[in-house]
């Protein structure tokens, strides 16, 4: 087997809110105050094969976007290692690291906020490839036109500003910008969440088509299970910073193992379920500042036992290509 395109080994990302001056003085005087630390991503292992589409699913605050940003190198990880094609990224020289980073591009959620409103489309798409020396400045115009065509935009609109485009077109500009530096790996962070249903289908089709054309690998972050099911080969479910289950897409949707996955799937409204009786999962998503002890899901889990409150379950292989973190599997 070839090395995975990208591998995360025991990646953690913490955000700390440092104490201010008053806090530090109070601490010196013996007050019970500490730095507030959020464990946004907690010891995640993930290997992605070339050409694979991995769906990353979870509710808000579960750390899925943070993980995506760590993958792209936008956030440095607090601990753990990133490996790219069998090489430890953090051991690379700065120049090599930059070259590697260019291979991993991100498509952001908000097609309004992620485009510079004062740049013309030709600069938005064309700036990075010129800066990185992929394209000569004189060929920039031509290159931008070809990129725009690739994502289904009319190249004659290159001189326009982002506000002159609709939401769907803006999403395409974001995709063209990411593709302009010829990446191998795309992280799509809720890339279709802000779009209307009919436009969403158009953009999803573009993703499928580009994957085949350019042999791309995707990490597709979304809370929409329908979209993830359609697109992904494999699905990873996160809850409060930890991976709770990973499985091939079809298996996960037909036989979810982890109680959280089961609950999540039961809540997804479906076109074919009419006038259903909604049953609510009890409780709220806990704050990642003060996650519950043991298994993070235990306060909401219908099968919670004493053990779940004390001991965090580890991610165990339960079948071929399937892993789940739950004490019930023992």
């Amino acid at each position, binding site marked *: 087997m070839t090395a995975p395109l990208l591998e995360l080994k025991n990646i953690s990302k913490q955000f700390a809110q440092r104490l201010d001056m008053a806090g530090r003085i109070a601490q010196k005087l013996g007050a019970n105050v500490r730095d507030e630390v959020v464990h946004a991503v907690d010891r995640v292992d993930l290997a992605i094969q070339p050409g694979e589409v991995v769906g990353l699913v979870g509710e808000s605050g579960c750390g899925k976007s943070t993980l995506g940003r760590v993958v792209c190198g936008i956030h440095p990880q607090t601990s753990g290692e990133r490996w790219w094609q069998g090489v430890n990224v953090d051991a690379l020289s700065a120049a090599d690291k930059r070259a590697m980073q260019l291979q991993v591009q991100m498509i952001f959620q908000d097609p309004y906020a992620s485009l510079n409103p004062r740049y013309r489309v030709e600069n938005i798409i064309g700036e990075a490839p010129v800066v990185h020396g992929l394209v000569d400045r004189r060929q920039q115009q031509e290159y931008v036109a070809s990129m725009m065509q690739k994502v289904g935009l009319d190249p004659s609109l290159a001189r326009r500003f982002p506000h002159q485009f609709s939401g769907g077109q803006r999403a395409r500009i974001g995709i063209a910008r990411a593709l302009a530096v010829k990446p191998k790996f795309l992280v799509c962070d809720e890339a279709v969440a802000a779009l209307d249903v009919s436009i969403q289908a158009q953009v999803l089709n573009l993703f499928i088509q580009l994957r085949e054309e350019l042999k791309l690998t995707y990490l597709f972050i979304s809370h929409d299970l329908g979209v993830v099911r359609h697109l992904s080969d494999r699905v990873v479910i996160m809850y409060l910073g930890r991976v709770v289950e990973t499985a091939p897409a079809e298996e996960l949707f037909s036989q979810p193992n982890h109680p959280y996955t089961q609950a*999540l799937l*039961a809540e997804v409204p479906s076109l074919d379920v009419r006038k*259903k009786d909604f049953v609510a*999962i009890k409780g709220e998503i806990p704050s990642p500042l003060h996650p519950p002890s043991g298994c993070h899901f235990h306060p909401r889990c219908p099968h919670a036992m004493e053990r779940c409150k004390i001991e965090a379950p580890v991610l165990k292989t339960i079948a071929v290509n399937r892993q789940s973190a739950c004490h019930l599997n023992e």
Partner: protein
Amino acid sequence: MSAVLTVDNLRTHFFTKAGVVKAVDDVSFSIERGKILGLVGESGSGKSMTGYSIMGLIDAPGRIVEGRIVLNGQDITSLPMDQWRKLRGNRVAMIFQDPMMTLNPVLRIDTQMIEAVLAHHDISKAAARDRCRAALVQVGIPSPDERLASYPHQFSGGMRQRVAIAIALLNKPDVIIADEPTTALDVTIQGQILFEMQKLCRESGTALIWITHDLSVVAGLADEVAVMYAGKIVENGHVSAVLDKPLHPYTKGLLESVPSRNVKGTPLKQIPGMTPSLLSIGNGCAFRERCGYRSGECEVAPPISHPYPDRGVRCVHPQA
């Protein structure tokens, strides 16, 4: 059973410098007690404006130019402002998409809720407070006394939306209009809210208009559905009938573009083009530019026809 709310040929137009925007253009529907109507459409289709029109919340340059809104047998279309105030929040209430925008951030929850009760009822403050407490319990908020004394920022998104729902319920209205109330929420929290709303309609007989772009939510929640496109209802009927046998090409296209209706990994069926600007539709069917069944007849705006009982469609080539 008679309808609690009937909307008849409603037209809400906005008179802007660039031209007349027909945000709501000839919309008719009615809803009975305890029933749920799903009003579905994409952004700009006029579904929220229909809700605002019923609430009497249309501001200049917009105005209701034609049509009737009848609530409990009373025509409320052209009520004077002071009479509107007696109805709004009392007989009809609205829940908005973003609860952070609808709750006043500098007032405690109890202040805001008691105000809503006292505006319509001549009761003591203590009695009003009891009523608020009961409403919070009804929407499933734990430890209501503590929560009454909290500020909006102390609640999570889902809890805030529950408070907004509780405020809508306070005066036991006949009709609640919910404008995308779960769009900003996570699926598990959305499930909880849908559960509460469903229970409520069953128990109190409140009629609910659920405005959304999510057909799957409508499938699970609503009795009736009306699909809007460019200011018009293009198709309406019972949920099962519309979702299983869509007649209008737009409804059909929408349903086919939902990922779960497509074979995994294959390209999704898509509706070409994009929603037209409401300024540039001209005469004729607004969907004709994106429609695969377009013909010469589409250059004239199609009237609503009723191929089956309780079923309406605005198309000259209804599909079956």
